[in-house]
């Protein structure tokens, strides 16, 4: 109980004092996770929409794989990216291992299936409603794709938030490919893991509270915008 109250006090202290290390860690965490979300959105939205709209041999199998990859273990992703980016790996020459870029790559791989799978479902449902009208207006499935993504924009916000949540909360992948190097690749989750291993549970929990607070704030802001826009555009 003491640890918990101490954790809240530590979290409060870190925030009020605008601790430089904390700000650096929070900044890098947001930079890595938001960059990963942007990449996952660029790949996942069209991929999900294409899976919903186009019929091709093996579509069912691809859908199952994408859905299954939503539960991809971060450490496995981290390990795969590590092997690819390590000096002896196929992309080792790029020297990206233990850099924020490696962490972005790992998180993007982790959350692209989440965004793609949720997008596929959303677009497939919308297509049921729109298909006849779109075809009547002379639109093929390819031209319908951006239309459906645009019209599903409010629902897709939830998919993007799910991806962001997964990225900001994971520790395994960024720990392996980032290495938790102070002032270089240390993010919230790896910092928490480090403090736990050092036995400073209050600081670890304090960082955790800050992380949860950040996540809640971002979700609340997005939800509020989404609700207001949805009320207008239904």
């Amino acid at each position, binding site marked *: 109980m003491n640890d918990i109250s101490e954790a809240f006090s530590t979290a409060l202290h870190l925030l009020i004092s605008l601790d430089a290390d904390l700000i650096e860690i929070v900044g890098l965490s947001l930079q890595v996770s938001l960059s990963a979300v942007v990449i996952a959105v660029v790949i996942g939205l069209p991929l999900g929409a294409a899976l919903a709209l186009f019929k091709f041999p093996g579509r069912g199998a691809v859908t199952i794989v994408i859905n299954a990859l939503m539960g991809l273990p971060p450490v496995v992703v981290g390990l795969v990216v590590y092997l690819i980016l390590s000096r002896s790996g196929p992309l080792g020459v790029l020297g990206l291992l233990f850099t924020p870029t490696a962490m972005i790559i790992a998180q993007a791989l982790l959350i692209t299936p989440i965004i793609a799978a949720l997008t596929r479902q959303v677009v497939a449902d919308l297509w049921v*409603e729109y298909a*006849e009208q779109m*075809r*009547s*207006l002379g639109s093929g499935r390819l031209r319908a794709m951006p*239309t459906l993504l645009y*019209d599903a924009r409010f629902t897709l916000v939830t998919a993007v938030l799910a991806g962001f949540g997964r990225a900001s909360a994971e520790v395994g992948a960024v720990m392996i490919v980032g290495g938790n190097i102070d002032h270089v690749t240390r993010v919230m989750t790896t910092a928490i893991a480090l403090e736990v291993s050092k036995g400073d549970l209050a600081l670890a929990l304090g960082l955790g509270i800050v992380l949860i607070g950040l996540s809640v704030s971002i979700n609340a802001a997005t939800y509020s915008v989404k609700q207001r826009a949805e009320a207008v*555009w*239904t």
Partner: protein
Amino acid sequence: MTHTTPISTHNVPANDVMPEKTSTPSQSSKILPLRVESLSFTAKGEHLLQDVSFELSAGPRTVIMGPNGAGKSLLLRLCHGLLEPTSGSVRWMGGKAREATMSQAMVFQRPVLLRRTVAQNVDYGLKLHDVPRADRPQIIQDVLNRTGLARFAEKPARLLSGGEQQKLALARAWALKPDVLFLDEPTASLDPAAAHAIEAIVQTMHDEGTRIIMTTHDIAQAKRLADEVIFVHKGRVLEKTPAEHFFDTPECGEAAAFLRGELRW
């Protein structure tokens, strides 16, 4: 589904062009006549439409009538190319495939409007039809003025009332200047005033030369709008006759029973 009553084409001239009842629309069309030959549609082993043949030329307004489940909407969708027939063919004799597709429009019973403004909904159809960007604002303004929707131009389309939404669906179709307009029970869920407004727009489109082909089970509406009637029952076309004849002296017993409100479906 074993009904074998033959199609009646009472008083239909050889070229199937029906006498006009109330108006003199343009007889020119890039894609008509529409020739439907031995059309059948089967789903999950059930014969929903069987051996349907007819031809529609430019001119009269055709109303497809029949009880619920007769196959009216299915026939409309097959003609419009939204469904592939199990057998038989739908051929537009006057144009190439792409031209035929782009010269038709359809308004559905439940309008599907994009989550955009009223004006953007009309613009979307024009964009798909490759209408130059510079020409679109004028077309949109014209069509919204004519349908009484101009004051809603910047309003989200899905916030309109049911009648206004259906008007917008019609406006979106009208903006494309279709040769042929299919309407699938366009007033089925509207109040009388909204239905009247929709009928007035349909009449204007007809007057300006758009070939109207619509379904309805509303006998009064059919009497107001139809120049000719195609009567469908249990997946078969039982009559294709001038409207006056259909309502005064229907050829088949099913049509007579339908008009008396006694047809079981």
